[in-house]
């Protein structure tokens, strides 16, 4: 295979990469926007819904993320292989951009009632559909413009857009919030980040209109060799379907769980398991991303020299063998008191096994209300390690912290006593000469919770459990005086480096696995199923495993098993592609 002589990137190639990457910046900008503004959006659009409607909308929101994207990969992949990369690419960014912008001008539930959440969900569906076609288009378009021997380096630029999209969303949201104030932001300012996206859309469309069609597709079209039925060619023939399945389980599944673990689960673990305050955890993650992001290019370029497969599979292998020690080290560096309490205090949950569920809840619509499930939810959320003890059938669950027993059954007398105590504390705080606004606020919330019919039992049980855990040395929050910033950043950077190993070369490898006539269709589906399903299910699966087993590290088994399976399957059945001539079968 002839490899292009080393030469600097041409102006046209730079433009191709820039234009393609702008779309994925958009994709990531949106992804972070919906995360950061979730509470405000829920309040604006879903707060007036009754329980039944809220259930349906929760399922639809789940579908927008998990089902519509792979479907979009099929729809736009097919178009991309039939009418061309450039126009498909233009359609996906227009749908994505306009959907985002319209959210910014959409009236809320208070103005137009149930039509507001219906339109919002419809826009999310459209966005999901377009997103399904965006990444495959960007990867294919850039790769088909890249010289042989440079595809890894060129396509790796697309992967850096995840960090750029995050930083852009942070700047727009926080900038707006700081400028107009929290109250105005919650009222109307949340619309600004959606409206601003029109600028990004205008630039993207302008540049994409001036681009040429991919040379490989142009040649194929001129020769009349384009596929008439890309879907049946890609998935209806075992020869190609086999490669699609291998791309999924031998590459993208492992890549996705390593990516989710390294960025999102690490952040979730810091804030929810290790009880580090949100702003500190965010800064730590952002610094590690800044250090790690250039390595997308490093590993993409390296894959042109030593191969894609060894780098991607080494990233998955390192993740599988080092996650347990690395996350244990993260606990010791971020919250040493928690590590000490876990080692010292023995906690057990004695429950009837028939009452205990595997709390897997991907749609967020299930309710786990048995005494065993509630006990385990509370302990898992408090990052408590515990052993399970079998109780006779029909016995309500009991938590034992050291020698202290916490019953899950709460009597009206318990509620009355707790309420009296909380009211006395509130009265004392109000009577004090120096008013402590924070303490008064917490005491008022406590009295309110103890007065509510639905919340009183939970408040009493949670209060008793918190007191028992506090006595056993479990910290309610990480002690920032003991927080080792340097070690935390080093650990997080290591996790991001694993992400760059698996993600840097992935676009080039996926592109090289399939022929030009069905490339867009074939590579988009395994990418979106891998990242959407294997990656997207990580948080809820990890939580269910933690709650089931009573060990806050056991959630890591999910990415470890998937990454391990990718190492074995990818290692045995996926061929190296760096020297493949992607035009050989055109």
């Amino acid at each position, binding site marked *: 295979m002839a490899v292009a002589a080393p030469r600097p990137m041409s102006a046209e190639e730079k433009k191709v990469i820039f234009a393609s990457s702008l779309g994925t910046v958009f994709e990531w900008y*949106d*992804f*972070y926007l*919906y*995360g*950061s503004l*979730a*509470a405000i959006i829920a309040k604006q659009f879903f707060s007036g819904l009754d329980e039944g409607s809220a259930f349906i909308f929760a399922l639809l*929101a*789940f579908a*927008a*993320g*998990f089902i519509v994207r792979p479907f979009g990969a099929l729809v736009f992949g097919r178009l991309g292989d039939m009418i061309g990369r450039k126009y498909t690419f233009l359609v996906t960014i227009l749908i994505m951009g306009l959907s985002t912008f319209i959210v910014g001008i959409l009236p809320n539930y208070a103005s137009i009632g149930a039509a507001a959440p219906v339109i919002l969900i419809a826009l999310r569906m459209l966005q999901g559909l377009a997103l399904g076609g965006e990444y495959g288009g960007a990867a294919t378009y850039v790769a088909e413009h890249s010289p042989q021997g440079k595809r890894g380096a060129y396509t790796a630029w697309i992967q850096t857009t995840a960090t750029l999209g*995050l*930083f852009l969303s*942070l*700047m727009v949201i*926080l*900038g707006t*919030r*700081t400028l107009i104030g929290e109250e105005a932001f919650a009222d109307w300012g949340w619309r600004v980040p959606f409206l601003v996206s029109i600028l990004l859309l205008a630039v993207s469309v302008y540049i994409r209109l001036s681009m040429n069609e991919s040379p490989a597709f142009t040649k194929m079209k001129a020769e009349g060799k384009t596929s008439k039925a890309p879907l049946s060619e890609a998935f209806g023939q075992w020869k190609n379907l086999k490669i699609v399945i291998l791309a999924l389980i031998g590459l993208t599944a492992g890549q996705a769980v390593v990516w989710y673990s390294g960025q*999102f689960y690490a*952040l*979730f673990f810091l804030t*929810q398991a290790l009880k580090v*305050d*949100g*702003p500190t955890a*965010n*800064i730590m*993650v*952002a*610094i590690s991303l*800044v250090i790690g*992001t*250039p390595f997308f290019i490093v590993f993409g370029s390296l894959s042109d020299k030593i191969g894609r497969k060894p780098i991607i599979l080494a990233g998955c292998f390192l993740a599988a063998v080092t996650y347990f020690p690395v996350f244990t080290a993260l606990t010791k560096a971020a919250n040493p008191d928690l590590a000490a309490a876990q080692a010292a205090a023995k906690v057990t949950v004695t429950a009837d096994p028939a009452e205990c569920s595997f709390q897997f*809840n*991907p*749609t*967020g619509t299930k309710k786990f209300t048995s005494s065993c499930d509630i006990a385990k939810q509370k302990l898992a*959320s408090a990052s408590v390690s515990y052993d399970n003890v079998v109780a006779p059938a029909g016995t309500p669950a009991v938590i034992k912290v050291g020698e202290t027993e916490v019953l899950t059954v709460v009597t009206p007398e318990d509620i009355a006593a*707790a309420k009296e105590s909380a009211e006395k504390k509130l009265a004392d705080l109000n009577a004090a000469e120096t008013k402590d606004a924070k303490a008064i606020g*917490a*005491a008022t*919330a406590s009295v309110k*919770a*103890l007065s509510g019919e639905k919340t009183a039992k939970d*408040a*009493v049980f*949670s*209060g*008793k*459990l*918190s*007191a028992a855990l*506090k006595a056993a040395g479990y910290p*309610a929050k990480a002690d920032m005086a003991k927080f080792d910033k340097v070690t935390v950043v080093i650990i997080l950077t290591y996790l991001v480096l694993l992400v760059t190993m698996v993600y840097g070369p992935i676009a080039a490898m996926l592109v090289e696995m399939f022929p030009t006539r069905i490339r867009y269709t074939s590579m988009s589906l395994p990418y979106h199923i891998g990242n959407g399903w294997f990656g997207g299910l990580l*948080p*809820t699966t990890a*939580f269910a495993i933690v709650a089931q087993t009573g060990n806050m590290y056991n959630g890591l088994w999910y990415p470890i098993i998937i990454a391990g399976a990718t190492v074995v399957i990818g290692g045995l059945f996926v061929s190296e592609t760096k020297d493949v001539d992607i035009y050989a079968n055109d």
Partner: protein
Amino acid sequence: MWKIAVGFAVFAALAIYILSQGGDIDMGGEKHGGDAAHTESPTAAPAQATSEAK
């Protein structure tokens, strides 16, 4: 290449500066329903206060 490196460094520094000034924000990305259920329970604060009241 050096221009991109400098541009990225400036952009990242600005983002981290704004992040350090701007307070709390969820950087966990879009949730699809189930994920949201695993974040800290809204009753956690009252529960803490209840335990402290004892």
